[in-house]
């Protein structure tokens, strides 16, 4: 009896070990596939030899020139200007979008009004359509009010649809017990006070998430930027600008510089993420209600 038990136990452990091994091998393969392009990009950005493509991964000559030239050689491609454009856009979008998303989510989570369900569904469905469907219409509208070839116009496009991203944020607000609102209400707080003093401090993780999402988007956005800024290189964002370096006539000379630019683009995003990361994981509702 005892022996049988032991045997069963051992075989279970073996099965677990095999499953673990298989799992780890699969994950390792996937992560290699995943990491290689980034590694390639990073290595290429330090490549000293010219040309678009090399048949080897490790550069023969390491240099920082690609980075320095991005900022010094601005005659053809004004990278610092693009970088600044994108940064300003991202900053503005980040602030405006966060405010709009938080306000929408709070309203949809806490207030009960006629048409609430309808609005929620409508926003959800609208959010499923790709943004470029409305591209031409948006372009003509902006042209009418004279906001083409302007960063304000671009920010407007980015921010306009932010309410559609209420879903995750509302889900988080729903997990904050309503009795907190009610307790504050009885304590004499107005809706305004409840939102800023009670709900927002508790919603840090989701605010961080929203901020990151909003800040991230303009760095990689190409379509609206290229359409709106058509012909005016000084208003380009990084994605749109770096794309210019990959034109057939430029790629041979500028490919390594393009890689350096791409690496630089990831710097602010990574920095922001590292800074905000600790709030991301901090569980804050502990102790609010029975734990």
């Amino acid at each position, binding site marked *: 009896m005892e022996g049988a038990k032991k045997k069963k136990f051992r075989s279970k452990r073996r099965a677990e070990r095999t499953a673990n091994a298989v799992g780890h091998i699969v994950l390792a393969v996937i992560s290699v596939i995943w990491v290689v392009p980034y590694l390639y990009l990073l290595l290429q950005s330090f490549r000293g030899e010219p040309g678009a493509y090399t048949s080897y991964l490790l550069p023969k000559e390491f240099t920082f020139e690609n980075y320095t030239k991005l900022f010094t050689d601005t005659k053809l491609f004004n990278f610092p200007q693009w970088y600044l454009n994108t940064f300003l856009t991202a900053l503005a979008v980040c602030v405006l979008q966060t405010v709009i998303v938080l306000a929408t989510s709070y309203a949809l989570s806490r207030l009960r009004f006629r048409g609430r369900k309808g609005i929620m569904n409508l926003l959800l469905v609208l959010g499923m359509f790709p943004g470029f469907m409305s591209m031409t219409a948006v372009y003509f509208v902006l042209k009418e009010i004279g906001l083409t070839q302007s960063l304000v116009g671009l920010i407007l496009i980015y921010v306009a649809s932010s309410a559609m991203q209420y879903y995750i944020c509302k889900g988080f607000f729903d997990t904050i*017990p309503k*009795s*907190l609102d*009610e*307790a*504050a*209400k*009885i*304590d*004499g*707080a107005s809706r305004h*006070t409840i939102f800023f*003093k*009670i709900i927002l*401090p*508790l919603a840090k993780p989701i605010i961080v998430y929203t901020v990151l999402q909003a800040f991230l988007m303009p760095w990689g956005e190409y379509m609206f930027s290229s359409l709106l800024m058509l012909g005016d290189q000084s208003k380009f964002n990084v994605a749109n600008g770096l794309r210019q370096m990959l034109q057939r006539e430029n790629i041979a000379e500028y490919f390594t510089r393009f890689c350096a630019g791409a690496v630089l683009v990831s710097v602010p995003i990574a920095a922001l993420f590292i800074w905000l990361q600790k709030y991301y994981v901090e569980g*804050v*509702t*502990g*102790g*609010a*209600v*029975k*734990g």
Partner: protein
Amino acid sequence: MANLSLKHIYKVYPNGTKAVNDFNMEIADREFIVFVGPSGCGKSTMLRMIAGLEDISAGELSIGDTVVNDVEPKDRDIAMVFQNYALYPHMTVYENIAFGLRVRKLPKEEIHSRVVHAAEILGIKDYLDKKPKEMSGGQRQRVSLGRAIVRDPKVMLLDEPLSNLDAKLRTQMRAEILKLHTQLKTTFIYVTHDQVEAMTMGTRIVVMKGGFVQQIDTPRNLYRYPANKFVAGFIGTPQMNFFDATLTQAGDKAELSFAGGEAVLQLPMEYLRKVRPRYLCGGAVCAGIRAEDISLAPNVVAASPYKVKMQISHVEDLGDESLVYGTVGEARIIVKTTLSHEYRAGDVCEAAFNVKKMHFFDAETEETIAPRLPEVNELACSAHEGKLTLAGAEIALPPALQGAEGEGTLLLPTDAVGFGGDIPAVATDCEQVGEKYLIGLELGGARLFAVSARRIEAGAVKLAIDFKRVTLTVGEFRAEPLPDSIRLAGTFVKKKERRNASGEPSRKKMINFYLDLAGASFPAPENITRKLLSTLSPRAVFSAQFLFEFTPYALTFGEAGIAGEVLSVVDYGAEQFALVRVGEETVPVLCERPISGMVCLVPVLEQAGVCEAKSGIKLL
């Protein structure tokens, strides 16, 4: 001063569910009121309506002297403690307690002294710098109490504050909340589903079920005089034993026979005086007796004439006492006893009932059939030539009841028996029930009850009977009581006119409100206008049908008004009433002299009650 007045309060959700129905209560200053009932009975909803967290669908809620239906929670001067504590997790204990004061912008020193004072009272002074998550459940609930008391509110509302605590802590916190109540000298309203909590804490308890108030009384009275089977079963552990049985009167005894068994008890009628006679003719009733009112002790059983055979199924030993479970006939029974060791499962023994403490309920409605204040006396009588004979006593009948001849019954409401008339009787006893007195009377050989607002000493008294409220059935003759209220359907309308509400012409167009009532239109009195406009949505108020309720005294004859035809005039001696046919209703109207033909009725609308016809919700 923080008394509360709750009048006809309803909570109706948009989908039509009624969570609270016609809640009426007056709460005095410094009372400790407990709302108790099973989950979903509307007790928390009621509390949240008092707090202002839920809208009141209909009715009137006043705190102190102000109607607060439309007052924000923060301006009601109330504080609330939640079941899940609802502490702000990102704030320290100090900040949690101070939050309400900071929002109200009190000076810093004042806030500090108040917070420290509250913390001292609750014994959490050492934890002021901690965050809620670092504290235990009991401590968190103390913080929550601190947050409530620091504002020194007029009314403290507690929504199941101890439900999340373990049993030992609960008992301890119970005592602390009671101590707090005496210290703070303020009104407490406490919601719980635990009847032990209710019984030990409340000065008065409101038992609720399915949105309806079942009974409002002191813990002792709830235990002794449950108004219905639900209250009887809900209050007290172990639960009261119930038996389906029949009651049959035979002389001065009544036979109580248990359904499905041979068990029969002969109860003295003395204990069943308040039971209406119609339950004593072999009808099905539900008999109830508490576990502690049954005895298994041999000496008690030997001396008792009221015993039944009981088969023991199992015994629960609780140390100082034990619960013996068994069956009597088909009914299950629990007996609380201190002599457990002598009883074993399977044994058959005799159980003695303390029949004086038995309760009886209607088998269908489950209401008690022996209320503390009986509503009506049911008496055998005979009538002959304008005289009513009640067990030897003769009473002159008023002209309206002259036609009665023969044997029959008289239903005489207990509050229709007045003192100071000309019918000689003897008062035998006087029992105080709440603010009223129940007087036992002997009229000839008949025994009856009267309800009086003042104490009546035993001895000879003179009675007056209000004949317009009696039901007399003798032979073919049947006299119904005059309805104490009549209802007329009507609507609320607005008209734009070049005159004001009192009829004086004005240059500007004014909006005047009218009540269209049974084919006539009357200017709506201000109280009704205000009430209807404030409780119903603008769309509903002008399309809804209302029922307007009047007493026979709130209608007068006039030149113009509701048209009707006088059917007859009934004469009760002191008063005469014309029965007027209005549409399909027959409406009694006080009249000074005989009247006939077509008349016009003018209602005194200020005194009218209003309810919505469709939902039956009382608005005024």
